[in-house]
């Protein structure tokens, strides 16, 4: 069980920093095509922002609801990943061969770009969920048990 942090400095800084961290995470995620970054790092940063909100505001606060909700999303990222890979196979290429991504009305270059962005989003979701669930399972076992049983 994580209680809210009682320092006003930490709370105000958290209120300010968490959105910035999330925006930076999204930037790293989408910038991955053109430079350093990508799904894994972006997912870690997004996951960290949620962990931070749980640590600062406690896990019953309304700000931490997203972190608790996202625990159920374990595997959604992988489904996105599988969907993109499957569309590539339907288009006649190998698994994850984005050039054959079966979305009509797109140039090959656009297909490659879209394919890699979608898979990276999938990776980011799963990495973020995993990071959050590690923190939760270390801190409060009953949350995971509850969410599984209910």
């Amino acid at each position, binding site marked *: 069980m994580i209680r809210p942090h009682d320092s006003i400095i930490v709370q105000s800084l958290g209120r300010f920093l968490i959105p910035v961290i999330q925006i930076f995470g999204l930037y790293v995620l989408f910038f991955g095509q053109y430079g350093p970054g990508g799904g894994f790092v972006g997912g870690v940063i997004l996951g960290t922002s949620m962990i931070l909100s749980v640590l600062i505001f406690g896990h019953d606060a309304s700000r931490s609801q997203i972190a608790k909700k996202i625990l159920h999303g374990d595997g*959604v990222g992988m489904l996105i990943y599988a969907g993109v890979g499957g569309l590539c196979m339907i288009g006649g290429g190998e698994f*994850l061969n984005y050039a054959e991504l079966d979305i009509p009305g797109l140039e090959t270059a656009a297909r490659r770009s879209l394919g890699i962005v979608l898979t990276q989003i999938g990776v980011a979701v799963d990495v973020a969920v995993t990071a959050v669930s590690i923190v939760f399972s270390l801190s409060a076992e009953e949350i995971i048990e509850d969410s599984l049983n209910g």
Partner: protein
Amino acid sequence: MSRHFPAILFLLPLFAAISMPVVCLRHRHWSRPISLAVLSSMVVLSILNLNSIITHGEVRYAFSGWSAPLGIEWVADGLASMILVTLSFLGLLALVFAGPTSPKDLGGRIVHYYTLILLLISALTGIVFAGDLFNLFVFLEVAAIASYALIGVAGGRALFAAFRYLVLGTLGASLYLLGVSYFYAASGTLNMADMAEKLPHLLNSKAVVGGLLFMFIGLGIKMALVPFHAWLPDAYTYAPESISPILASLVTKVALVGWVRIIFWVLGAKVIVNDIPVLLLVGILGTLAAVIGAVLALNQRDIKAMFAYGGISHIGIILIGVSQGNQTGFVGGVFYLLNDAVMQAALFFLAGMAICQYGARTVEDVGRIGKQAPWFTGVLIIVAMGMIGLPPTGGFFGKWYIILGALEANNYIAVAAVLLSTLLTLAYFVRLFEAIFRQTPLPSDRLPSDIPFAYKLSLGATSAAVIMLGVFSDPIVQLLLNHALPPGL
């Protein structure tokens, strides 16, 4: 379409495993039907895959369209496809068997339990298909992590056994990874086919010699080769009854397949590293394992431990077969590997049934229940025939070809080791049968007579497979000779 089979065979259980927590969030009891459906379609796909490999030749599947030395490659040749048919068949039966035998107190963790089983199956598929050394490592680790968790599910002594397996298994994986990095440093590539071209010029390099040693020790731990087998008996004995058939029949055998791939497809069959012929070394290790494992099995009271040591000794027999350096021995070894996977699955089904249905764990307990449990004793007789190597079963033909191969190579020590281990196998099964047929059951031991259908199905199918592999041994051996031989043998 058929060229996608190898990728689909791996991706299907992987994605099913990872999406299971989402799909079964509200309906926890869906996890078992979903797993069964996935494994059934794997059986169908793997047979179609084998068929297309036989008619069209091997498939090299380049993920994302990046071809071999740069990208990640799946190699579906005859050997991999044959192993995969066995793997998915036994995986399905083990899953059927897991229904009535799973630990009862899993609760919400039942979803995670089936997730881990599917993850284990997909990782084993990955090891069989992997075309490069690094991905072999990745899937070895995924399979190992899934097995640690599955062994520990039952709690109690199983946790300690799982922890011991974790320590030794991690050591093995680290050594293997170290070996791969030495190979990479020496040759600049990780792809097996590419490395096979570059290695012959590098065999005297210290990096290759050291790397080979590390890889052998690492994989030796994974497949419980005799000096490194200490983790196996406890892990298999205390693992939940529903899990030990998968572990015993598949995990060590698939690690052995990885070893065979590295020796024959990467190094080359006749390779001599630092004046030591690799095959000779493998043969000596196999001889030791075959005899020592059987001797240790003879000393066990717990039937699961007895069967686990039996499996260790059979790993040795397979290694004796593949290390003879001729086609007969190699095919015999691989054929025996398929048989052994089926027989180990059947033995652990039997042990699981004895424990869950009748509460019998030791040889004496089995003697007490034996006469009243026709399914148990009947299947035990068939599987024992296979383990000992009596004619109508596949075990006989496997040993036959191994001995023929050893005679062809004038390796009489190997012949003696196979025969000695056969005698010892006979001895520990005679102990079981003596207990069954000499004890008269007490009138108080009324046993439950209704056996769940899942037991009948899994026991019936495996014992039929033990006999079928013998009856159809000729076409299977021809298939192996035509499609599964390594280059240059």
